[in-house]
């Protein structure tokens, strides 16, 4: 139970062993900008919901910014992500326009999915984002499929071969250019689809990063009550891939861990399981009254707010001043507000009923 104890205990010690010293001011502020955009996006979303301007529900990721921004910052162009239903942070950090994201939630034609998806569905092919499955754990086989495609394009059959009697596990491992990331939560880690995907990825050495964003709760179900093993990462052993649990509220640790995992995967060694420990400080969705956890626990994690921790670190290391951070915060908040405002102004532009019916089937021209 060592890992669980680790994640349940307050992190009182300062962040150590991070890669900050190797970074310059510009890149360290880029990381902060991603986290701030995610946070301000969620705050604006909550405000719009409370004002009754958005239909349906939403899943906010406040508190998980390091896990989401850190992953996206560490990826390269061409690396695909398949996020969870709590997808705003991943989407914004992968490069999508917040205007198109707000528009999606307003249900307008300017949304990433033309208003047909909503808060949980923000695919963006131009930013290597397949969009989320709103069926918890079902995005994982899809991401494994992207890895299958990646490997098939780069090394053909090696690793799958039916034609020879050799065991594909023993084939030479060839490097691949890009990876895909199967993002899932602690709740999804109990899904059969996740385990089947891990087995498939392992036997064929598929270039996929299984990225478990462990935010401690699957809706109200606490992960230490629902998961049999001491950690999700420890399950990697069963599939003969590396598994690692890291502090997901330390963005620099996340970046370092993802980069390490990516280089392992790209070398052709196969899948990798990374579990990032974080906490969703808001409820599961807008209707959650959070009766299943204590205020003390929430406070403990609020004190470990990933943005505050990172900002403190930046100032301590002398990479920027408090004033510079405050200016950036004001600037990013304004940027997000303006995107929301414009999306709201354009929110009446809808697909017609006829257009909606035409979206059901792809046509011949969609792919020649």
């Amino acid at each position, binding site marked *: 139970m060592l890992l669980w104890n680790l994640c349940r205990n307050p992190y009182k010690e300062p962040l150590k062993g991070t890669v900050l010293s190797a970074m310059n001011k510009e890149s360290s502020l880029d990381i902060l900008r991603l986290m701030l955009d995610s946070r301000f996006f969620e705050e604006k979303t909550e405000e719009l919901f409370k004002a009754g301007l958005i239909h349906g529900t939403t899943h906010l990721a406040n508190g998980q910014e390091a896990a989401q921004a850190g992953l996206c910052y560490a990826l390269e162009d061409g690396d*695909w992500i*398949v996020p969870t239903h709590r997808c705003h942070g991943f989407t914004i950090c992968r490069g999508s326009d917040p205007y198109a994201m707000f528009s999606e939630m307003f249900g307008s034609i300017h*949304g*990433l*999915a*033309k*208003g*047909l*998806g909503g808060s949980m*569905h923000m*695919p*963006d*092919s131009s930013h290597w984002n*397949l*969009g989320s*499955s709103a*069926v918890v754990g*079902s995005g*994982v*086989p*899809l*991401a*494994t*499929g*992207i890895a*299958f*495609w990646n490997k*098939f394009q780069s090394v*053909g*059959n090696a690793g*799958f*071969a*039916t*034609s*020879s*009697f050799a065991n594909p596990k023993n084939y030479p491992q060839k490097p691949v250019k890009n990876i*895909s990331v199967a993002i899932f939560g602690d709740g999804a880690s109990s899904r*059969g*689809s996740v385990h*089947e*995907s891990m*087995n*498939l990825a392992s*036997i064929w050495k598929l270039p996929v990063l299984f990225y478990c964003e462990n935010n401690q709760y699957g809706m109200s179900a606490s992960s230490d009550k629902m998961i049999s093993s001491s950690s999700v990462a420890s399950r990697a052993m069963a599939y003969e891939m590396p598994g690692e649990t890291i502090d997901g509220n330390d963005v620099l640790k996340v970046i370092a861990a993802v980069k390490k995992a990516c280089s392992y995967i790209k070398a052709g060694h196969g899948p990798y399981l990374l579990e990032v420990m974080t906490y969703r400080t808001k409820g599961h969705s807008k209707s959650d009254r959070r009766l299943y956890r204590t205020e003390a626990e929430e406070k403990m994690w609020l004190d470990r707010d990933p943005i505050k921790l990172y900002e403190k670190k930046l100032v301590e290391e002398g990479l920027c001043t408090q004033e510079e951070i405050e200016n950036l915060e004001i600037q990013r908040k304004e940027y997000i507000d303006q995107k929301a405002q414009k999306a709201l102004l354009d929110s009446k532009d809808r697909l017609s009923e006829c257009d909606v019916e035409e*979206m*059901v*089937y*792809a*046509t*011949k021209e*969609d*792919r020649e």
Partner: protein
Amino acid sequence: MITFREAIKKALSDEMSLDSQVVLLGEDVGVYGGCFKVTGDLYKEHPNQVIDTPVSEEGFTGMAVGSAMMGMRPVVEIMYADFFTLIFDPIVNHAAKTHFMSGGQFCCPITVRLPEGSGTGHGAQHTQSPEALFQNSAGLKMVAPSCPSDAYHLLRASIRDNNPVLFFEHKMLYFVEGEISKEPLEIGKAKVLREGKDITIISYSRAVHTALETANLLEKDNIFATVIDLCTLKPLDCTTIRQEVKKTGRVAIIQDPNGVGGIGAQVCSEICSDMTTFKSLKSPVVQIGGKCTPVPFSKDLEKTTVPNALDCASKIATAIKA
């Protein structure tokens, strides 16, 4: 002459030769040759494109969906159609909704081969015909050929289609022989197999053979029947259905699976909801389907779960004379 089984293999092989992005995924589809010996030595002709999987229907079907969204054209073989329960999530929640929910950014050209139907003595979990359970899922297409030529052309069309297509192949048809027509058959087109003036019999898959036999029996009674093979179950070819029903003013639907909420019920609805077709009817629609029980193992009992031509002919003759 070519068998239904060989026609499926030929379609796979021809598509694989044409496009390196066509792959077949499934259990024992490689060296073993497929549970029903459909793939045979396909793995020798296309060593890069025939891939044996572990017993992980949900996992590898979901994986195929993801790869289809990226540009591949995977074909998934589900050993027995009964295991459809395991692929409902990737197919219904994901493949079927991909184009729609991505606002048209992605499409999902996956083909799922589903060997279905009773007659093999495999018991109730290996003999179902599950098409009814998929038919109200928007975004899917479904085909169910009854002869080698249609199997060949429809499988090729399914692979080329940019949407998810469920390909239902009745296990009792594997030995049926025929020539492959030079005329391709498109998805969405029904075929008129014979024409008669008295009644239009509508059927699909193996039951088409029951329908043809029924028509022959009826002829002895001086009742002349048109027989339509639906070929595509979704979207239905309502134009052909209505046109042929209007010509005779009477209609019988024969299908192997039980009729509750089935394809036949949908065909009936398409007939009755169209005013001119409905007005042309001289008598109620005759619905003949399998029994609403799980399929029994015992050979004699198993036979009784699907309609036979004698019963069909007698029901139709009674309805016409009433």
